[in-house]
């Protein structure tokens, strides 16, 4: 039994590493399509970790969560975005990101260190797996926030939000595996509705203003000439 749980823990460590790697990639990718791909990868590693935790902690609820996450995050949401937002955007590169790729990676690294430092100061959660998931999920949350702040295109901004949410859930599945199933089920559906509504907003913006570079919209502020 001990061997199996050690194996599960190290597999979970691998999933966590890859999860963190996809967060880094999300922060550094320029292409919109690439962003979406790395989001899909990140979600898959979230599901893998949920499955490992389900076996490790004997939390059968997590199996249902993993199945629902697998259906919605890597499959339905990208499909939905592809349907609603015209394909041309996905081949686009972001011309002016606020910071270049090397500095983005450095900042992501700094945020990861910060996440480890913060989780050291918290009371250690029970279980080897949770001790891996806490700093990694926190790092993904911080990197997602950073990604959101520097993106100017609509779809990458949305994916930044999803990155934050994935980070929160990556911690959540480890520290709160006994969460009521109804609540767990509500989260992915919520993400689905967010994707739907933001997709509609993106299309409205595209039709009305002719661009999806929403970072460039800055006419509303306190000014006399406005």
């Amino acid at each position, binding site marked *: 039994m001990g061997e199996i749980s050690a194996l599960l823990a190290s597999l979970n460590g691998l999933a966590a590493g890859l999860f963190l790697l996809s967060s880094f990639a999300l922060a550094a990718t320029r292409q919109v399509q690439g962003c979406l791909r790395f989001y899909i990868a990140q979600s898959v590693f979230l599901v893998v970790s949920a499955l490992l935790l389900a076996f490790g902690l004997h939390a059968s609820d997590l199996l249902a969560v993993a199945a629902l996450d697998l259906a919605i995050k890597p499959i339905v949401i990208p499909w939905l975005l592809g349907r609603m937002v015209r394909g041309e955007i996905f081949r686009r590169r972001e011309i002016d990101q606020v910071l270049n790729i090397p500095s983005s990676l450095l900042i992501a690294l700094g945020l990861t260190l910060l996440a480890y430092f913060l989780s050291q*100061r*918290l*009371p250690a*959660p029970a279980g080897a797996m949770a001790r891996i998931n806490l700093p990694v*999920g*926190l790092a993904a*949350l911080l990197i*997602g*926030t950073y990604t*959101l702040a520097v993106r100017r295109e*609509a779809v990458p*901004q949305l994916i*930044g*939000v999803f990155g*934050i*949410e994935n*980070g*929160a*859930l990556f*911690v*959540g599945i480890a*520290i*709160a595996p*006994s*969460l*009521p199933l*109804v*609540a767990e089920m*509500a*989260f992915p559906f*919520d993400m689905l*509705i*967010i994707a739907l*509504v*933001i997709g*509609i*907003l993106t299309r*409205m*913006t595209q039709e*009305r*203003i002719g661009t999806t570079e*929403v970072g460039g*919209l*800055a*006419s*509303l502020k*306190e*000014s*006399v000439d*406005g």
Partner: protein
Amino acid sequence: MILLAIVVLPLIAGLISVLAPGRTIAPLATLAASVTALALSVAAAASLVAGQPVVAVRNWVALDGFGALILLLTAALGSTAALFSWGYIAREKSARRLRRYYTNYNLFVASMLLVPVLIEPNLVWTAVELTTVLGVYLVAFENTREALEAGWKYSVLTIMGGAIALLGFLAMFAATSFGGGGPYTWQRLLMLAPAAPQGVLQVAFVLILVGFGAKAGLVPLHTWLPDAHSQAPSPICALLSGIKTTLVLYVILRFAAVLNVSASGSADVWATVVGLSSVAIAAFLIIQVTDYKRLFAFSTVEHMGIILTAAGIGGAAAHYGAVYQILNHALTKSFCFFAAGAALLTVDTRQIAAVHGLIRRSPAAGAALLLGGVAIAGAPPLAVFLSEFSILRSAIEREHYLTAGLLAAFVVIGFFGTLYHLNRMTFGRPEETEAGAAAARLPTSCLLTLILAGSPVVLLGLYMPKPLALLLRMAADGLSR
């Protein structure tokens, strides 16, 4: 059962709005559903005040004092805004867009009604997130460049806040899940908090305060609020400013109560610092505004700060002040936005500098705007003054002199800032333009809304019905324990 009916009614009206052809059925169904929901909410609150527990689904859907107050306000504003929408949105030429407005309106109201009746915190997170997301289309409804910009800023910042708060919610659950597999409710959270690991509780609360603070328009993540609350159609502004931000604050205050009963921690310092800085920044921004809808939007930031500061002061008197302020803010601010909407219909500009002598061009809109401004700024003897005064008094009683002094200073700055702008708009000589001569008459439903929404603003300062006072007392108790 009554609680479920309250939430389902707007959903039915939403469905009717999708299906029914023409331009009249959708607003009619919306109005009927929201007024019925209001009547049911009053009934539910009344039986709660009479001492009967109101439970729809055990451990999931139920009502307590604090929830009942919020439910009542949501249903009331949902009704007045529906009535105002009737005349306001009628300008929309496309029947399809009109129906889409009402569909989204009903979904938005239903999600807001869901927040106070749910008692499982994780589901509350989902409901709050739904209110945010379902509001996006309504914020961007005007479909202008500015409205879309506002829609983006609103959705990106507030959904980000929601995602950050999610971690706080999960950590809160993790910290209190040692007590076995019992039902997880607000009540049980309060019971388990004293024995929970204090560090985790603190971190969870800060995550929730930062994340949901963005949704409630608290400094420093308030920047989206004036944009969204000025670009949306006026009835939607009334809902967003009057109750949507308050709903989020309601959840934050619930968690503050949890932290306050825990062994070491206290939310007081956090609440006071964030609350006071919100009041301060809003007060100075009010002086600079050039757009009268933004003026009211900043006043919302100010009021959210005042309520949070009151919660931070602590003690029964301050908590009573906080819930009283919630009541007054919801009623008065929604009235302000109805008045702003009426002014916008009359003069067709949002610029303060472009409007003079509004009271001569449209006595109703001018008088309403003036009343709203005077009331929301906190002039005696109107209700906002009473609640702000009671908060200040409780701060002095508890010897928080610095808090009291700063709060009083900022509130006074906000007061004069608001009145300075509104005075310029209301009085003076109107420009004699062609448009001014043919002053547009306000739609009847808008006039009716101004009267209906305005009367509690005037009366509540002079007379408080006894059941309402009892409900406020119950709501304040929910904050203290």
